[in-house]
């Protein structure tokens, strides 16, 4: 049969009348935020980039950096073996940390958004961010007590027969890894929770109504709709973890180094701000590359899955 003409459908065609101020452009309201961003983010970052081309001031000179001669020298010395070794370790620690955060965090976010009764949700989200009310430093330091070779955790594991010798993970990469997962788990859970919570329940019912079981509904409706939150959580966790320097400093000792430590050492101990700046710029560039490659991989996979499914029409 023929349904009536769609031209008669006028429900969405009424334009919204907006009065515009002649004297102030529309983006005037964005100035405070733009100004803040410029002063506290763009300008300092620009200085870091400029510094990275400078040189360590000669004894007796004023200021942190000598900019009389600009060169790539800092980059040449930054691109050393040790930098790459530490960079690879950093990527591994941040990468594994991000993946484990996602594996632990997604079920939590999922249960919180879709299975916990609404009246409990606020309380549980509050409990999730409650640890953030204490100092980051303090919380990380507390892990030293937990992970100490003579600590309770070690004793408990020994008692249970899981290990035979005292736990020897403090001041190693393993401790750093644990600290990273612990610290960034809420950063992963919150964006995931928000995107899952926003999914309209009737969409899941519609999927079931059209013949998809719970598993297919999850893959075809829930996951794609939550994708922005999941990707956001992955990105946020990865970037924060890769740039972290507190956790490796406190839990990593001399063995568990990350790039953040290298940068901090150059700037704070070696008083070589230009070299530290060059390392920081390198970290930004390499991180951007890694993320671009990961993004491309995700895009390729989802595109080929779509192609495999075939067009609907």
């Amino acid at each position, binding site marked *: 049969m023929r*349904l009536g003409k769609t031209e008669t*459908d006028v*429900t969405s*065609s009424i334009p919204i009348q907006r009065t515009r101020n002649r004297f102030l452009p529309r983006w005037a309201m964005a100035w405070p935020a733009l100004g803040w961003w410029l002063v506290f983010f763009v300008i300092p970052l620009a200085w870091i980039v400029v510094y990275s081309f400078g040189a360590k001031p000669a004894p007796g000179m004023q200021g942190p950096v000598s900019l009389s001669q600009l060169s790539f020298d800092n980059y040449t010395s930054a691109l050393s073996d040790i930098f790459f070794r530490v960079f690879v370790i950093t990527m591994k620690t941040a990468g594994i940390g991000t993946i484990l955060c996602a594996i632990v965090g997604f079920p939590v976010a999922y249960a919180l958004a879709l299975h916990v009764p609404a009246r409990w949700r606020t309380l549980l989200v509050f409990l999730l961010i409650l640890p953030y009310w204490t100092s980051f430093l303090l919380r990380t330091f507390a892990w030293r007590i937990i992970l100490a070779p003579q600590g309770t955790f070690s004793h408990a594991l020994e008692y249970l027969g899981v290990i035979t010798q005292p736990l020897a993970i403090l001041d190693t990469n393993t401790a750093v890894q644990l600290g990273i997962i612990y610290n960034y788990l809420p950063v992963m859970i919150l964006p995931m929770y928000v995107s899952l919570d926003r999914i*309209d329940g009737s*969409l899941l019912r519609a999927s079931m*109504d059209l013949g*998809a079981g719970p598993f297919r509904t999850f893959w075809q409706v829930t996951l794609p709709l939550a994708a922005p939150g999941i990707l956001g959580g992955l990105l946020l966790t990865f970037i924060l973890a890769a740039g972290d320097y507190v956790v490796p400093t406190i839990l990593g000792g001399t063995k568990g180094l990350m790039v953040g430590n290298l940068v901090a050492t150059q700037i704070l101990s070696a008083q070589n701000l230009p070299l530290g700046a060059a390392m920081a710029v390198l970290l930004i560039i390499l991180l951007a590359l890694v993320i671009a490659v990961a993004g491309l991989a995700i895009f390729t996979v989802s595109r080929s899955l779509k192609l495999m499914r075939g067009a*609907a*029409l």
Partner: protein
Amino acid sequence: MAAEVELERVTKFYGTFKAVDDVSLIIKKGTFVSVLGASGAGKSTVLRMIGGFEFPDYGTLRIAGRDITMLPPYKRDVNTVFQNYALFPHMTVAENVAYGLRQDGIGTDERKKRVRDALSMVEMLPFAERKPNQLSGGQQQRIALARALVKRPSVLLLDEPLGALDRKLRQQMQVELKLLQSQLGLTFIFVTHDQEEALAMSDSIAVMRNGRVEQLGGPTELYDTPATAFVAGAIGTQNFISGRRLGNDLMMQSDDGAVFQVGRAAPGLAAGVRVLGAVRPENVALARAEPLSVPNRLLARVTASVMLGDTLEFLLTFKDGKEFISRIPRRNAEVPNPGTEVWAYWAPESLNLYPFEDLQVNTNAVRKDGN
């Protein structure tokens, strides 16, 4: 193919609230049935149980004779058009319509053909590659319909699908839905709170109240011979007069003493009990001079007149403060100004008696207590 739907003594609790109370209903195959009720009457719960989104605490549901009471939604030969359409925002229109066919593993060629057919049926083929948020409410509604019908279910459930549309579009869709149903020969179960909509579209209407089916019948039957005062008030408009039945006769005496002749008394109405008399506004005529030949007449004052297009509606107030509505075709109407006194009168056949019940919440006509 179309199938019969049967509810047998179905009860559903939400906590301690009895949302559906011992409902038995047989929906004949290939018919358009509306479930009419106010919010909280249990109509949506009935629909959700047929769709498989809620499971009854007691009772049995059958489709085409097969027990489906505890079957999950994806194992039922039923599809739903949701109130908010529930189109998948991350898929194109064509992907939305193809979704159900993909779940059934329909081959590519047939799938494409059926998607195309379904979209042309609702005249939305040119919009196939759009995303749902690029469509108007009416267009989304058509896509939701196409998505449900492309699976060729034996029963289609519609959960107030026209509620979000403007009046003109809604009336147009009512006609189209009705045509579609009779051409496809499917069983349509349509939930609505709009009695005009139910009257316009349905082969039969189940009027629900407090989780129970108050009456099931065709539109004419419900309009002309409602079983209870509630149904009488829910379908169309009624003026109610509370009073007492005089003996076993077709007579009633109102609370303030006036005696009226009655056309019909509800079956099983005992002698001398408290009753509600009901007369429809279109049966109440007005006259300046006392119509001595008519037994049912009352002197009233015109409080307001409302122009409804082809008819005029008069709001009348009697001496004791009770209100009455009269509706008169415009070309016959001489227009009494507000404040003038007129005689309201109606034929005995148009006054029906029902067992007395508290209708305060449900009637927009006369307040029965008169103060």
